């Protein structure tokens, strides 16, 4: 236990605080305080990380700590962060923070909602600070289950179906994953489940041939890789706002992060030889998700398919196995996390007012909801990769990186993936055109009120983050770039 664990402890303390709080005021106080503390902490950790690096500490992971947990299985509670984790922690904090405000007036059962919400964030934070496969897996699963209740109780639409589907499919992913993890541990002959330790060993290539697909698919399910993505539309569509935000914004990143940390890092040979299979699949995801999004009429479905496309790009880039593309992948995680959270927040807010998510039933909302409308446009622009917003940097890094692979196969796939930016434009503009522009058709929509202060706070925070990432990507890009290096080195072996 070192101070990194505070990221897990704070939500746990929040849970305790929530448990004793009685009124809505108290609940709000607890969650807001906790979320703010987490924000500050992640800022602090970023600063500490950067200054440590600047001081010349070139260890692969910083602030590591290692406590033996289950000695017979060599399970340790080991934590540590590199640039990627730092980036992810930042992302998580931002989204947890904004999620709290996006569900400021959640009803019914606010206490329970935030209890689960905190548990969810424990899982996410824990995942990003862990370096031990067991701990990682544990946190991963912790993050899965609250989803069911969060969606099931506070969701909308076909929530029970969506919740069940999401939970079961992700559980399926974790089934693949667990076999993979056990396989890696035993086949590597390592004396620890710590990733860094295992990386020092070599897993026999025969074992890699089945472990790599297992782990990659396992994480890939969470990363909404084709054809295991169908939980995403149904799940996101029925989830309450904050949950969609956290799930699409952070949880889906667990997939990419895991693929990167476990599948690629530990099994470089298999990654080299088998990446083409998954490249094809993720390539399909990218284009397929985008095309699917075009014809959807439900805002959340559109965004969910868009997430399929964008997260597909993350995995796609990871599989390119070079530093630039991988950096791009991580950037894309950040970027997608922020903007999809923004999207879901806005969709939730719009839905809260219009009580519909069908784009056919809305129009001209810009007039009555200027703040939300403008924010939606910004989110859309971020999504279609407008320079100065986060999406651009990420996508460009990915494309430039992917193009470093010289053979025709990679080239063609890269170009195919590039087309997604056009398709993205198509569906984003379609939505924006339909719901925000034009004349208001529905009488009820004429008297809608624009965002409240807490909604504004949530939205503005996200927008600022998107702008910050898009306009000043260099420091974070460098931070990630150097943290990707160990993996690249591993691949070069």
């Amino acid at each position, binding site marked *: 236990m070192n101070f990194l664990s505070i990221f897990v402890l704070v939500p746990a303390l929040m849970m305790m605080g929530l448990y004793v709080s009685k009124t809505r005021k108290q609940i709000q106080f607890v969650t807001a305080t906790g979320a703010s503390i987490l924000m500050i902490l992640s800022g602090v950790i970023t600063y500490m990380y950067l200054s440590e690096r600047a001081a010349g500490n070139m260890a692969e992971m910083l602030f590591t700590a290692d406590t033996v947990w289950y000695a017979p299985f060599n399970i340790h509670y080991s934590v540590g962060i590199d640039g990627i984790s730092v980036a992810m922690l930042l992302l998580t904090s931002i989204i947890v923070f904004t999620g709290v405000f996006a569900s400021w007036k959640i009803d019914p059962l606010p206490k329970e909602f935030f209890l689960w919400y905190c548990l969810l964030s424990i899982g996410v934070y824990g995942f990003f600070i862990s370096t031990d496969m067991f701990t990682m897996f544990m946190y991963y699963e912790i993050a899965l289950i609250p989803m069911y209740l969060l969606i099931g109780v506070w969701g909308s639409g076909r929530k029970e179906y969506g919740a069940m589907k999401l939970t079961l499919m992700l559980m399926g992913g974790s089934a693949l994953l667990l076999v993979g993890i056990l396989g890696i541990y035993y086949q590597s002959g390592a004396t620890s489940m710590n990733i860094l330790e295992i990386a020092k060993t070599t897993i026999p290539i025969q074992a890699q041939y089945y472990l790599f697909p297992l782990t990659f698919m396992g994480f890939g399910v969470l990363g909404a890789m084709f*054809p295991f993505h169908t939980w995403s539309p149904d799940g996101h569509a029925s989830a309450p706002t904050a949950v969609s935000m956290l799930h699409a914004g952070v949880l889906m990143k667990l997939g990419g992060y895991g693929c990167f940390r476990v599948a690629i890092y530990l099994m470089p040979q298999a990654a080299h030889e088998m990446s083409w299979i998954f490249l094809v699949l993720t390539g399909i995801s990218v284009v397929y998700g985008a095309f699917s999004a075009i*014809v959807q009429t439900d805002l959340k479905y559109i965004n969910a398919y868009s997430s399929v496309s964008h997260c597909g790009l993350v995995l796609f880039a990871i599989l390119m196995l070079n530093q630039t593309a991988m950096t791009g992948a991580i950037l894309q995680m950040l970027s997608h996390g922020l903007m999809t959270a923004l999207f879901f927040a806005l969709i939730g807010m719009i839905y809260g007012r219009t009580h519909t998510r069908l784009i056919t039933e809305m129009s001209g909302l810009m007039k009555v909801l200027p703040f939300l409308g403008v924010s939606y446009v910004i989110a859309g622009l971020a999504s279609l990769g407008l320079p100065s917003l986060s999406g651009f940097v990420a996508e460009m890094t990915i494309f430039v990186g992917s193009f470093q692979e010289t053979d025709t196969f990679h080239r063609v796939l890269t170009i195919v993936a*590039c087309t997604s930016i056009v398709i993205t434009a198509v569906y984003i503009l379609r939505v924006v055109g339909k719901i925000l522009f034009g004349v208001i058709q529905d009488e009820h929509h004429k008297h809608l009120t624009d965002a409240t202060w807490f909604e504004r706070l949530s939205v503005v925070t996200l927008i600022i983050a998107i702008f910050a990432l898009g306009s000043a990507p260099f420091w974070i890009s460098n931070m990630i770039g150097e943290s990707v290096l160990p993996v690249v080195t591993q691949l070069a072996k």
Partner: protein
Amino acid sequence: MQYTLLIVLLPLISFIFLGLMDSKLKPKVAGIIGTSVLGIITALSYTAAFEYFTMHKIAGVYERLIPLHIEWVRFTEFLHIDLGILLDPISIMMLVVITTVSFMVNLYSTSYMHGEKGFQRYFAFLSLFTFSMLGLVIATNIFQMYIFWELVGVSSYLLIGFYYTKPSAVAAAKKAFIVTRFADLGFLVGILFLSFYTKTFDFGILTSGNPNVFASTVGVSFMGLSVMSWAMGLIFIGGAGKSAMFPLQIWLPDAMEGPTPVSALIHAATMVVAGVYLVARLFPVYEVYAPDVLHGIAYIGAFTSLFAAVIACVQTDIKRVLAFSTISQIGFMMVGLGVSGYGAHEGLGYMASMFHLFTHAMFKALLFLGAGSVIHAVHSNEMKDMGGLRKYMPITNYTFLIACLAIAGIYPFSGFFSKDEILAATFEFSPYLGGVMSIIAGLTAFYMFRLYYSIFWGKGHKHAHDHTPHESPLAMSIPLIFLAVVTIFAGFIPFGHFVTSDLANYDIHLDMTVAVMSVSIAIFSIGIATLMYRKESKIPNIMGKTFSHLHKSASNRFYIDEVYIFITKKIIFKNISTPIAWFDKHIIDATMDGFAGVTQWTSVKIKGFQSGQVQQYAYIFLLGTLIIAALVLFV
């Protein structure tokens, strides 16, 4: 020349300020802020231009100045996006053009857009556009250009869709964005190709003429074509999209849904020439490493030019006429670049193209602003609602006429000079192409005067609805007059002293044969137009009937839009997306649900085993035992 940074930065600040304050500001204040910022940067760019062109030249060649340069994102060891300012003759020229037109448009808009809802927003967007466009032209590297390229696209989207409650405007904005976005895909992939082999984004390195930069491209081919052809061809697609080259021109006519000053600024003077600028920027690369692509550009330019000119002849919406005219003129510029070689005389086409870009920006802006003035007066875009306006709007009338003469290529208006150079270069490249271009020049003169006469001549009875049209206020007239003056005199600028393909001085000599021929064609065409449109006449109708097929096709813009609609609605939406969505729902998702279904089904099917009969339990028990024993023993 550090202060050039201000030229870019001030509009950005203005945008952010106006955008955040939005309706908290009084409209008037917003207009003043926007316009004055533009005024300041216009002054700054003039200063910069003056300073630059009077600077000491090294060996007779203008120096490339890079007053600012920072690394923004690093991709690989070699590839990094930098943000910087590159000053060389063409960028300086573009600075001047953009700031001038922009300033004029801002000034014009304070009056034109008076009372519109979202006035502040309008000025914010204008600032954003100016910022992006300036950023584009001063880009030091191709990726920076791409960045601003995209921003320009978005500002264009926002401005076209300014009247967001109007469905047609929204659709037009969407279309413009998506079409150019599609082209940008080519641009992007082109950049990827180019940068991968040259290991740089930097214009300075790319255009330095150092063969080592391109060493690794030699002999490398990708799917049959050499990589440089791929790279430069794809990059050109990006340019073609922004510059509305065939077949990507479709967005531009629709873009006229935006406010007219916006059309003047973006869709006449600045953004649409970005493609030309792009090709010009990379001209040395095209010239040396992808001459085939360069020639292709010439032919595409020529075809587009002809195509658009024909359509322009039959359009009835005045802004659309101007839009097609713009397409046609950009085609000219492209031809100019396409036929050009590198170096002094060889580079005539390049120089001419840039020159035409400059003059065209002025007179086309003038035309649009004039049209705006007319529309302001009659509240309609359709020619049939106009006529006889010369009595009511003298300033508009004269300035419009000047612009028409300029675009028709009548001496001594600026259009004559620039167009003439292009024709001369084209004839040198290929007489056939030259001939075609001359015909187009004739068509240009024809349709411009058709337009002119339809608006200002003929009977004025059609617009007697609520009020008689009157001349526009001062804020609108001043830009008209200013631009008219520029249009008249710009032709005498010794352009070859400033902008050439090799940055060295070049003196333009008029090629008299070409000049005479083109002027006579123009006059002839104007004559026909006068005949047909000065007064109410049956000839157009007869002509229309005679060539009904052609007329109809041209009126319908040769059905290219229909083809696009077919592709988007039928192919993409109906035959790709809908099936994919269906597939997703009924195959992929159904498979996942199917697992659950099969499990449930099995569950129902095997419930008989749990019959409640203890003897059956024992039976299964015994069977289990025997089977296990048998398996253990015999397998």
